[in-house]
């Protein structure tokens, strides 16, 4: 038994969970404050200084409410669904490298060689939580929400998977730590030409990388059921969508699971396209534990910046109509991602890296 490994892994898991759940709580608060500011309001500013204790008050409210199970539901699946909404989102974080090294320990919980496949495999389980919630509630609005959600997530998973293929054509490995290492050596994939301005190869791969980035980000929006793709829980049409019949902490798990999925999605976008924990000019953790901590800070700063974009987009765009959503997924993003793979292949074949 490898006790140091077990011990360090447990500490990493606990620390990462603490940080992610903290970000999640304050993402809810940020969502409410930023949406208010965008709409020329003030938002929650009463509980504690500037309303900073609002998430704690909300959590207390969820925990103290009666845990009510309606009589008409399928109890087993009704209880299973909220767990399935939360677990895949958290599990995915296991393979994301959130820092360089700290005291010689790599800052990734499970550095497995199928990295991104694992992410897709687990993330696609998230749809079961929503489908089971919609079906087991035995009620019309949740059912419609669940059906919408399953078709939407399946449609966008396609472009999600296809969008990252050019990244791995370039890097040749699925391991996410290798993706970050490649980006440290060759520039972030969103703008590989920075710092190496004369390199034609890097200018050319920037185009398919940018297309990949846009398609991937939009597909992540659809996967996390965020506006403009929030049809599963469209308040105006479906009351609350798949979680209409849920109350207290079970609703809380759905609600917070959405935010954890956002954090996970942002973490993967940061790892694949925005250089992970790397920032130009900042050394990695082998130069001292201070730099190791700073790398972790850089990673989470990037994640938070992306979360702001998520919130910003939500309060800007109206919801898509359902046929528009499907047309966008199947007619545009699927094709764009497919063509992008060929584009990348041509660039790699005729303009290889010098």
């Amino acid at each position: 038994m490898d006790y140091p490994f077990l011990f360090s892994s447990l500490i990493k898991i606990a620390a990462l969970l603490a940080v992610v759940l903290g970000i999640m709580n304050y993402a809810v608060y940020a969502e409410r404050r930023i949406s208010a500011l965008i709409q020329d309001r003030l938002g929650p500013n009463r509980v504690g200084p500037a309303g900073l204790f609002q998430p704690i008050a909300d959590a207390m409210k969820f925990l103290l409410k009666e845990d009510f199970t309606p009589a008409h539901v399928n109890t087993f699946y009704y209880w299973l669904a909220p767990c399935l909404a939360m677990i895949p989102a958290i599990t995915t974080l296991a393979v994301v490298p959130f820092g360089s090294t700290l005291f010689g320990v790599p800052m990734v919980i499970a550095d497995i060689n199928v990295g991104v496949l694992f992410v897709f495999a687990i993330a696609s389980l998230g749809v079961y939580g929503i489908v089971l919630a919609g079906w087991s509630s035995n009620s019309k609005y949740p059912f419609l929400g669940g059906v919408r959600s399953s078709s939407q997530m399946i449609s966008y998973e396609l472009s999600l998977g296809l969008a990252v293929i050019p990244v791995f054509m370039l890097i040749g490995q699925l391991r996410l730590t290798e993706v970050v290492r490649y980006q440290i050596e060759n520039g972030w994939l969103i703008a590989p030409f920075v710092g190496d301005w004369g390199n034609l190869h890097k200018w050319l791969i920037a185009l398919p990388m940018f297309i990949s980035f846009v398609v991937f980000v939009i597909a992540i929006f659809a996967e996390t059921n965020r506006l403009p793709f929030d049809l599963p829980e469209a308040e105006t049409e479906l009351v609350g969508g798949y979680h209409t019949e849920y109350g207290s902490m079970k609703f809380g798990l759905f609600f917070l699971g959405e935010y954890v999925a956002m954090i996970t999605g942002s973490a993967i976008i940061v790892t694949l396209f925005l250089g992970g924990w790397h920032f130009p000019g900042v050394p990695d953790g082998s130069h001292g534990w201070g730099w190791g901590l700073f790398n972790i800070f850089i990673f989470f700063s990037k994640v938070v910046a992306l979360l702001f974009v998520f919130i910003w987009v939500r309060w800007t765009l109206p919801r898509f109509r359902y046929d528009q959503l499907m047309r966008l997924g199947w007619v545009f993003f699927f094709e764009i991602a497919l063509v992008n793979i060929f584009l990348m292949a041509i660039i790699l074949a005729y303009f290889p890296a010098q």
Partner: protein
Amino acid sequence: MAITVQRPNLTFRERLYLPAILSGMAITFRHLKNMLLGRTKVTMQYPEQKWDSNLPEHYRGAPALVKDETGRVRCVACQLCEFICPPRAIKIVPGEFSAGDKFAKVEKFPHEFDIDMIRCIYCGMCEEVCPEQAIYLRKDYAITGFTRADMVHNKEKLLEIGGVMHGVVLKWNEKK
């Protein structure tokens, strides 16, 4: 008859959709920035900031009893307000002056005077009907309490809200 709706011909830039999204995001970001810089006027923070000084002269707030300039309660317990009150919020228990009293001419004074603020509809009829100008609608509007009993204003409370009012007083004036 079928009506053919002319669909607008979108330019390439409009059909691309992303520029429109970006310009929309620029608009929302401008609102966010103006809010953060304090350039946008927002709702008043109610309990801390109030609009009281801007209330109009004729504002109808909580009804209250007033005293005259010599400190006497103007009310003579005629009970007209109790009778006119549409929601029957006012309850008066009149007391009587004895025959030899200095104010025997006044006959009655309010022994108890309760206004149930849960019932009061702020119509101002009590003020209108009062022959002694003893009850006025003041500018207090935030009437709160933890129990129903808290919401009943007794005589002391009404006098506290009312304060002193100057002007003609008929019955308490010895010369009239």
